[in-house]
C-alpha cells in the first residue's frame, strides 16, 4: 500500500497510514466546512488500498465530528463494508475519550448498520 498522510489543522484530523499495523488513522477534530471535498482523497486512497482485499484497519480517535463529516465517514466505512462482503480482511476501530459519552454514541450510530468487524473502545 502506498504511504498516505494529511497533517492536522484546527478543524481537520491528522490522517496517516501506519504500515506496520496496516491501519489508516484519523485523529483529532473533523469539522471542515466542505467535508465532501476534504474526505475525497481519503476515500480514493481507501478504494485503492482495499482493491487487493486488505488487510486494512480504519481507526478513528476523534474529539468531534460535524454532521457533514459523519456523512463522509459513513461513505469511507461503506468502502470497507463492500470489501468485507467480498471476503476482504478489513475492520473498523472507533476510539473515544471515556469522559465523552456523546462520542461513544456517535461511534455506535455510525457503525450500527454495518456487518464488518467493528470495535468501540474508550481511552483516558
Amino acid at each position, binding site marked *: 500500500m502506498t504511504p498516505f498522510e494529511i497533517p492536522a489543522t484546527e*478543524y481537520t484530523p491528522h490522517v496517516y497510514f501506519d504500515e506496520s499495523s496496516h491501519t489508516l488513522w484519523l485523529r483529532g477534530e473533523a469539522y471542515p*466546512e466542505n467535508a465532501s471535498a476534504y474526505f475525497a482523497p481519503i476515500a480514493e486512497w481507501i478504494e485503492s488500498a482495499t482493491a487487493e482485499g486488505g488487510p486494512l484497519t480504519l481507526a478513528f480517535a476523534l474529539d468531534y465530528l460535524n454532521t457533514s463529516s459523519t456523512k463522509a465517514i459513513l461513505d469511507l466505512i461503506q468502502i470497507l463494508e463492500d470489501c468485507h462482503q467480498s471476503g476482504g480482511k478489513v475492520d473498523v476501530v472507533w476510539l473515544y475519550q471515556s469522559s465523552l459519552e456523546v462520542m461513544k454514541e456517535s461511534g455506535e450510530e455510525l457503525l450500527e448498520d454495518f456487518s464488518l468487524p467493528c470495535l468501540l473502545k474508550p481511552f483516558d
Partner: protein
Amino acid sequence: MTLRSSGYVQIHYFLMSTMLEALSHGRCILHLSGPISQQLIAAHGSQLKSLPHLDANTGAILFRIFIEIAQNVLRHSAVKFPGEELISCGKIAVMESHDAFYIITENPASDSTSRHIQTKIDQLNQLPKEALRQAAREQLKKPAVSKTAGAGIGLIEIARRTTSPLLCKVVTLPNGETILCITATLHKSKS
C-alpha cells in the same frame, strides 16, 4: 445580495429584540460579529469545550451545537465577502446563565431560505428525541443535497442536542432585507 448593498453589515450589534433577549440570559462568553469564517469559528469555538466549571461531555455538546449553528451561518448567510475563502456576514453569541447556555445567531438570508428554515425548525420542535435520532439516521443515508437546499442534518443535530425547543424569528428590516435569528438552548443539568 452584495456586501455593499446590505444594510445589515452597518449594524454593529444584534437586532434590538435579540439583544434584549440575549442580555436577559446572563453573561456573554463568546461574541462574533461581521465576517464569519471557518478559521474564526474554530479559533473561538474551541474554548467552549474546556470551560472550567463544565464537565467534559457537556462542553463537547455545547461545542457540537456551536459548530453546527455557526456553520449554518457560514453556509446560509445571504451576504458573502469576496475572495476564495468562504466568509459570510453574521452574528453569533453564546450567553451563559446559572443553569443554561444560549447559542444565538443572526444572519441575512433570502426570504425563501428563512421561511424554509423556520418551517423546518417548527417541524423539528414537534419531534421527541428518539424521532430526531431516526430523522438524523435517515438523512445520513440520503445522497448529499446541494448547499443551497440546506437545513438538513445540521438542524436535526442541533435539535437533538438542545434541551428546549429551538427559537426562530424572521425579521424584515426597513430596507427590505431579511434577517434570520435562531436561539438554541442547552441546560447544564439535562445535557
